[in-house]
């Protein structure tokens, strides 16, 4: 474990050094995500100029849900961005070879290789929104809500990561699975708003099949109303752990079907 941490720190430090070298690129990336976020918020703002409440939630509460949903998303984006490359080209080009001849877990190795600082955009916006919205969202801050929401964040991020592991692993069979990652990842849009606005089948889908609802709405609901921690927070933990186990299974099965490239 200590060795793994040491390797991670080494690789992350290298990534930061590289960042300094390409400063303009880093700024472009971070600013792009920041503006992308700003537009999402402007959208909510414009809607609320026309209506006082949405599905029973006030402007601040919706902002809170939106902000919370961006934190696990940003965390996953920060740490595991290289999985996209696995799906898009690492497997197809045969570059996955090198991970298989090193005495270290290939999944860890792939993930440790990049440290995607563009994610700052999502993290900053998420945190700023929580700070801005919390005082007016009518929530009671207790020791429990603080502890449970802090616990929920890494597990919610694990939902993102697991879905990415799973979908990128399809590349081992299909050579390239970029479009599947794109499609599944794109469903995180569902996590930004209360699931009560969706029709029943969609609600089931985003809760149990592609469980993005657990990365935003459910944990926020607990923080906002202190209701049903067993489902709203416990659900995040159970769903993410189960999903992670399944994704590891698929990933490992994929590796034994890996065909490399060339003759």
């Amino acid at each position: 474990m200590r060795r793994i941490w040491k390797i991670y720190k080494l690789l992350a430090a290298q990534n930061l050094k590289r960042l300094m070298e390409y400063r303009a690129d880093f700024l472009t990336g971070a600013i792009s995500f920041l503006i992308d976020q700003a537009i999402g918020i402007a959208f909510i703002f414009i809607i609320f100029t026309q209506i006082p409440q949405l599905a029973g939630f006030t402007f601040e509460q919706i902002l809170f849900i939106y902000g919370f949903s961006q934190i696990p998303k940003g965390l996953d984006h920060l740490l595991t961005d290289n999985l996209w490359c696995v799906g898009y080209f690492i497997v197809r080009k045969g570059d996955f070879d090198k991970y298989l001849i090193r005495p270290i877990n290939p999944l860890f190795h792939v993930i440790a290789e990049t440290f995607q600082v563009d994610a700052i955009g999502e993290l900053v916006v998420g945190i700023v929104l929580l700070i801005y919205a919390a005082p007016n969202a009518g929530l009671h801050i207790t020791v429990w809500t603080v502890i449970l929401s802090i616990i929920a964040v890494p597990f919610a991020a694990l939902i993102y990561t697991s879905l990415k592991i799973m979908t990128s692993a399809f590349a081992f069979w299909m050579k390239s699975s970029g479009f599947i990652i794109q499609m599944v990842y794109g469903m995180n849009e569902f996590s930004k708003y209360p699931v009560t606005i969706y029709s029943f089948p969609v609600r089931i889908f985003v809760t149990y099949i592609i469980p993005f609802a657990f990365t935003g709405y459910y944990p926020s609901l607990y923080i906002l109303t202190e209701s049903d921690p067993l489902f709203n927070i416990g659900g995040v933990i159970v769903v993410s752990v189960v999903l992670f186990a399944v994704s590891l299974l698929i990933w490992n099965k994929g590796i034994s079907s890996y065909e490399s490239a060339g003759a």
Partner: protein
Amino acid sequence: MIYAEHLRKEFQKIVKEPGLKGSFKALFKPKKETVVAADDISFHVPEGEILGFIGPNGAGKSTVIKMLTGILTPTSGECRINGKIPQNDRKNYVKEIGAVFGQRTQLWWDLPLQETYLVLKEIYEVNDEKFKKRMDFLNEVLELESFIKSPVRTLSLGQRMRADIAASMLHSPKVLFLDEPTIGLDVVVKDNIRQAIMKINKEEKTTVILTTHDISDIELLCDRIVMIDKGKNVYDGSLHELRENFGQTRELIFETANSSNITEEQFRNGLDLGGNDLVIESDKNNFKVKFNSRKLPVGEMLSYTLSLTKVKDISVKDADIEEIIRNLYRHGGESDE
């Protein structure tokens, strides 16, 4: 040390018919075809040997190497290296091997070389003292000093190859796989790399499996060669033996005043030599006779030619290994005897 037994690898390939219609068909009803990249490959390499693993493009060399390194899982058969099966205990197995794939680097593109080695040091759990010793050794053999602080992307091909070999040797592996380590390099750099491989093999008793298209690599480095073609073993033995068995071809070059009247027919009829046993190439003043020296002694060929035409000069060329191998590829390993 290394045992490969009846290794077989099949790939599924989707066959696409040409054109737009074919693309649509492939989308909805892909037609699959099984391709056998390696078929019943067996060989054994004792400790400390340098084995040349050769064959034409697409013969399945890389597939076999990738099975031996644990990257691919064989469809059937197994390999055992140092008593370990690569696919079963990958993590422990790869600690004992090093691999260089000449066509692609395993180094981190943006990292200075020095930093790459530091990361690998942790990955392979090499302690500080051993690492220092190791770097000194590799520095001496591969002369990394001049570019060790540069990012990998700025290295020349030759430098990068040396850097890659050093990276694969950092943890003192018992077996080293080199897949085309001299590809695309100029003569001087090739020579450097060969010297380094030889030194590593001598001083550390590292077993080396080397694939290459450069025949001089084999002549200079390899104790033994295994040749495969179309996924099958076609030859396994020493270079010397190969030359003995297949190297009967001799080449005589005659310089004459006018050689335009020389024909292959003439030689065939006069000497009773069939299909593969004789080739004649001629231009205005020179002609070249390649023939099987087991069927006809060199002396007889000489005197026959001299009886045909007036010769100004003669030169004799011994069979070179490249020629032999080309012959082997052509005949699929059947000896001429």
